[in-house]
């Protein structure tokens, strides 16, 4: 290349573009097509959004703040907060979208925000800017910053575990616990799911940091049975976890169990010091509610005596839950620590039989009633009474106490709750050849937890859903030979209501079984108290549960209650929650006395 004449004339070549159509985009008359992924102004679907605040936290510009929005009701797993964006700070990076666990937040293709007023740039985004599906920078599970997949809990193989009563789950290793715990975003929505509002993000943080002492201290703030809950809790917290919206929730329960199992000697970390408050409290029932209330009252310094009808502590945790789910070692460790604080337990003392409730009310400053539901409900069908038909609670109690139970080879279990699952899996371990589960609704309607259903199936339980037993057949000797049943169909009851099973009576079938276990529900036994007291108590509509006030006190002065006889959920953590409330109530009551 030189600087000859050619070089001088070369540029004139550009003249050819004079006659070409310009590529100018004729804005603002013809808008330019915006790319599908464009990162413009936020769009937030308030129905999907749970107000977890992760978008606000990740924002490098602090452009997002969470503000309460009127008309949105907070519920477990969802707050009434929604992100407010300051477009005077937002840099349109889209990280808020990639961190959004629910996928409610996205960036739209709209970008025009022109105003004379600075205040116009701060608002709460809603669906207003939405330009239809598939537009803008959307949240995508595959590209999300978050990890929606959990670490599977290691389990023993079904063939092996169905032979004995050793625990099914093997527990996390340290590495697994850290990986699982690190998924926690710390947004604390799970706390709303937990009946006793355990400080879940904080203890998960402590566990992943390896600070087990700190995590133990956090557990005991409002739950003195962390390892038990860390093994068999119904984990409502996990349902509230933000990950559960689009993926698998953090396994809060097992993390708690892992953290609690790291420290053998509770007393060394938590101390055995008790307070100086004076007062005598009687606790009826050595179950989760009873032990919780005893722990917190004893810590304050009160003298606590537990009256227990059975010869062992633990209540339903001991006699209701089979050992393959909750080992004796865990029970001993947790209960042992509480009793080591100086809680006295009187075993084999049934109220009403060995001692009267009115007497306790007189002798003690306060009485806490935590007796639970220990009586099974009968189906009320012909042939039900007699040998070969038993109640699941009785069956499980006997097995758990090591008493001999006579069962056959082919078992039918009726019901669909957690007790029914325990009642199916325990006979397998006792040598039953076949176990059939009969449930009148569909599998999706079962109140039992998903993993229990899964585990029961793995172990070989045959599920016969939408079946309703109508008669127990017996041979001449009174021995059970089978159960006659009909099928049901589900009848829609309108939106928001549970479909109702309706039996189809035309055709009957027969299960050929030799033992029937009924697990269709439990009910309390109020025969323990005198009629006068019973009359003074306020019950709920079903007549099963006692109504208590915000202090956990019943309508009888000095009588407090908690656990299954108070709440509708009927699990350990709810009993703990009731008991924590009642313990505070009792302390307040005694202070005022």
């Amino acid at each position, binding site marked *: 290349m030189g600087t000859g004449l050619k070089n001088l004339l070369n540029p004139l070549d550009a003249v050819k573009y004079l006659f070409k159509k310009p*590529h100018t985009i004729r804005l603002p008359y013809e808008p330019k097509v915006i790319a599908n992924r464009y990162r413009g102004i936020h769009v937030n679907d308030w129905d999907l959004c749970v107000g977890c605040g992760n978008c606000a936290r990740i924002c490098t510009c602090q452009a997002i703040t969470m503000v309460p929005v009127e008309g949105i009701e907070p519920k477990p797993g969802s707050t009434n907060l929604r992100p407010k964006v300051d477009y005077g700070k937002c840099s349109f990076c889209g990280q808020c979208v990639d961190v959004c666990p629910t996928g409610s937040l996205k960036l739209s293709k709209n970008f025009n925000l022109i105003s004379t007023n600075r205040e116009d740039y701060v608002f709460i985004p809603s669906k207003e800017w939405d330009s239809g599906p598939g537009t803008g920078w959307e949240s995508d599970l595959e590209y999300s910053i978050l990890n929606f997949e959990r670490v599977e809990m290691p389990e023993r193989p079904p063939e092996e575990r169905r032979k004995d009563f050793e625990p099914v789950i093997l527990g996390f290793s340290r590495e697994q616990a850290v990986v699982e715990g690190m998924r926690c975003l710390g947004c604390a929505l799970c706390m709303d799911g937990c009946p006793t509002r355990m400080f879940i993000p904080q203890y998960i943080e402590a566990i992943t940091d390896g600070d087990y002492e700190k995590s133990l201290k956090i557990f005991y703030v409002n739950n003195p049975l962390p390892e038990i809950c860390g093994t068999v809790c119904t984990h409502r917290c996990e349902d509230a976890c933000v990950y559960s919206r689009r993926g698998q929730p953090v396994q809060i329960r097992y993390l708690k169990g892992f953290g609690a199992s790291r420290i053998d000697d509770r007393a060394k970390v938590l101390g055995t010091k008790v307070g100086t408050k004076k007062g005598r409290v009687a606790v009826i029932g050595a179950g989760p509610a009873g032990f919780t209330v005893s722990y917190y009252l004893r810590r304050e310094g009160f003298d606590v005596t537990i009256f227990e009808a059975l010869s062992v502590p633990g209540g339903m945790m001991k006699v209701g839950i089979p050992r393959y789910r909750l080992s004796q070692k865990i029970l001993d460790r947790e209960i042992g620590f509480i009793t080591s604080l100086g809680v006295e337990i009187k075993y084999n003392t049934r109220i009403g039989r060995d001692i009267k409730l009115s007497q306790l009310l007189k002798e003690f400053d306060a009485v806490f009633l935590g007796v639970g539901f220990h009586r099974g409900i009968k189906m009320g069908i012909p042939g039900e009474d007699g040998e070969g038909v038993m109640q699941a609670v009785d069956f499980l109690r006997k097995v758990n106490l090591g008493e001999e139970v006579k069962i056959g080879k082919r078992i039918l279990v009726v019901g669909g709750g957690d007790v029914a699952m325990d009642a199916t899996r325990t006979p397998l371990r006792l040598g039953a050849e076949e176990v059939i589960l009969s449930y009148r609704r569909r599998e999706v309607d079962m109140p039992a937890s998903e993993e229990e259903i899964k585990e029961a199936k793995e172990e070989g339980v045959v599920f016969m859903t939408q079946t309703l037993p109508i008669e127990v057949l017996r041979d001449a000797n009174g021995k059970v030979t089978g159960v006659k049943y009909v099928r049901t169909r589900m009848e829609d009851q309108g939106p928001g209501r549970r479909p109702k099973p309706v039996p189809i009576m035309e055709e009957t079938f027969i299960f050929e079984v030799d033992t029937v276990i009924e697990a269709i529900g439990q009910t309390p036994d109020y025969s323990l108290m005198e009629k006068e007291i019973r009359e003074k108590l306020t019950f709920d509509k079903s007549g099963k549960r006692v109504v208590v006030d915000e202090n956990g006190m019943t309508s009888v002065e000095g009588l407090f209650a908690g656990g299954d006889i108070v709440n509708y959920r009927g699990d350990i953590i709810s009993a703990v929650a009731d008991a924590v409330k009642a313990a505070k109530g009792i302390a307040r009551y005694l202070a005022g006395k």
Partner: protein
Amino acid sequence: MGLFRWSQSRSLWMMHFCTGCGAVEMPPTMTSRYDMERFGIIPMATPRQADILLITGYLTVKTLKRVVRSYEQMADPKYVIGFGSCTINGGMYWDSYNTVKQLDLYIPVDLYIAGCMPRPDSIIDAFVKLREMIAKGEANGWKRYRENLEWYRTNQAKVFNVEKWSAIEP
């Protein structure tokens, strides 16, 4: 008066002062693809002949001093467009020790464009809006500056760490 303002709005010269990252979207707006000359807007190198001061993004303290000086050199009427989120409330640099956060504390702003950074589409929309405002006589930032000169100068002096500051008599 209306005709006068209308003609004013049709020939706006924009000062060629690239203050921040937003400057990188100015060449596309000026050149063939978006071509803002269609609206009678062309870049101008000297403040004395310019009508629009486009603050393209964050202003460091050091630049602010030059901006104020340039702004005061511009002849009335003059208009300021705050371009990008960082002129509104600090934007990405909300915790930077060296950038000013709210532009209208230091010079009057007639129009803001949010974005990091705004697209040429937005810039053209903003120019169209500014033209309308000028034609209607709504773009009065320059009057505000004159009326509240002391207030602006106090604010400016604060970030320059001096008692009193004036762009004209340094």
